[in-house]
């Protein structure tokens, strides 16, 4: 396998993302401590064997909280990207297939939403909906779907004119068959690349919203609200900001590298 050596982004990014997934799935069991258990005796304790990432102001184990935070962060970001993909893909695909006036109207609407800065849209939505995980997912999806709508529309518009699609149409294939057998597989590649970058972006946006107090609310551990809580103790307990900060950075780095790698892979094969 010389492929991985030629594409280090894919290898490193893939490895980081794999570790993140393991952390999200099994981390809470590996940490085997209650992320909410308060132990004032070890408040602000520095990292030690018993508490590898130390303890926060209430003596809660930071390692356990980072692991639960990984579950929340990955859970929220994959749900948001999945929902954005469905909503954006359906709207973009339908718009392209409908064509003409409908397409024009839909794309103007998408342009207006795109003219609105994404994180601001999410902040405004979260402000109105109130904090909470479901509301957080809705607010972030409101920001995420437009990119997919544009991408899928563009892909479908160009694929529709390919010869093999014309051939399928000429052979009398039903539109649904053309869509499922011929268009979807061809769209999958670019969509996978954008979805990978999208997860990284949403991890950052989720952390920012939770940091601002508009996402996951304490005591639920999320990387963003851990960072916010740790800021008070910058000088005496820097590990409180370092642990979630590095987690966010590594997670975003992992998905960015994986996206770069997938894009290079798609570029070579297609």
């Amino acid at each position: 396998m010389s492929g991985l050596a030629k594409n280090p982004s894919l290898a490193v990014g893939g490895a980081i993302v794999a570790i993140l997934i393991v952390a999200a799935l099994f981390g809470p069991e590996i940490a085997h401590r209650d992320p909410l258990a308060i132990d004032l005796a070890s408040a602000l304790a520095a990292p030690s064997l018993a508490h590898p990432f130390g303890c926060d102001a209430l003596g809660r184990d930071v390692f356990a909280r980072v692991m639960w935070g990984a579950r929340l962060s990955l859970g929220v970001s994959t749900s948001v990207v999945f929902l954005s993909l469905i909503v954006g893909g359906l709207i973009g695909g339908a718009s392209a297939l409908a064509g003409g006036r409908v397409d024009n109207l839909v794309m103007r609407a998408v342009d207006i939403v795109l003219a609105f800065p994404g994180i601001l849209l999410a902040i405004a939505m979260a402000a109105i909906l109130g904090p909470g995980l479901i509301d957080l997912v809705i607010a972030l999806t409101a920001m995420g779907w437009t990119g997919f709508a544009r991408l899928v529309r563009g892909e479908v518009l160009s694929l529709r004119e390919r010869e093999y699609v014309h051939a399928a149409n000429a052979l009398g294939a039903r539109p649904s068959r053309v869509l499922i057998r011929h268009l979807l597989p061809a769209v999958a590649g670019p969509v996978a690349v954008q979805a990978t970058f999208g997860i990284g972006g949403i991890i950052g946006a989720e952390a920012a919203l939770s940091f601002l107090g508009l996402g996951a609310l304490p005591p639920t551990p999320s990387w963003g609200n851990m960072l916010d809580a740790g800021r008070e103790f910058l000088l005496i307990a820097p590990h409180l900001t370092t642990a979630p900060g590095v987690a966010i950075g590594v997670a975003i780095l992992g998905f960015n590298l994986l996206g770069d790698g997938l894009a290079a892979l798609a570029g070579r094969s297609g």
Partner: protein
Amino acid sequence: MIRYLIRRMLALIPVALGVATLTFALIHLVPGDPVVAMLGDTAAPADLAGMRHQLGLDRPLAVQYATFIAGLAHGDLGESISYRQPVARLIAERFPATLELAGAGLLVAVLIAFPLGFIAGANPGSAGDVGAMGFAILGISVPHIYLGPLLMILFSLDLRWFPLTGRGGLAHLVLPAVTLGTALAAIIARMLRQSLIAVRASDYMRTALSKGLSPTAALLRHGLRNALTSVVTLLGLQLGGLLTGALIVEMIFSWPGLGRMLIAAISARDYPLVEGCVLTFALSYVVVNMTTDFVYAMVDPRVSLK
């Protein structure tokens, strides 16, 4: 040129109207009653009705929308509930601080990105390239909300070079600006490197080299200008992000700008102020993007102004 400028400004109107409509829809159509949110679940129905009347929320939606747009047309954004002052005045007071921060962030981004991108692009594969691009990938990945506290620990608490928070002289501006500009610097440096590498293979570069220019001089004199067009495009796409990034950086450094006022307004349930801040952010984003198109056309003469 002037005709082009006027056309672009006219094109701004429908987009601005759309953005205003979306802002209105966000505040008024998203489920959740702002009045209940403001006064709490246990408020007496009479109080709720009174507040609703005061805010004009008891009128039909179409009337509220018309009032909102009409007010907007002459700069009236209503009155803030928590400050008891016109929203437009509050925004006019805070917005310069946000612009100052965003401008400084842009300056930092450019100052870091150009040397890095040039070193990397001039000698791809060299140690300088690997180092610069390593920095770039780190810069893209480190979120503001971590970089900010990190810089605070290092340069404010440990080294005591810069003040921790607040707005004042130049010293106050450095850490927030670096926090805001680093990610953008990384993105621009990567783009500049790519364009320079592409430019190096072109015929005019070979001509410049064959007439005896040193590789660095040729790249500086002929390559950089041609690489600039793609950098300016990217810069424009990212400038809006600088504004929203400022929103978060303001929270980290207690910077008294529009973003901090927006977040405070959200927790105070001051909906007229939330609406005004969101609208101002969104409209500046639109204006910045339009301006970029224009600058792009000036940098690259091949782009027709028609």
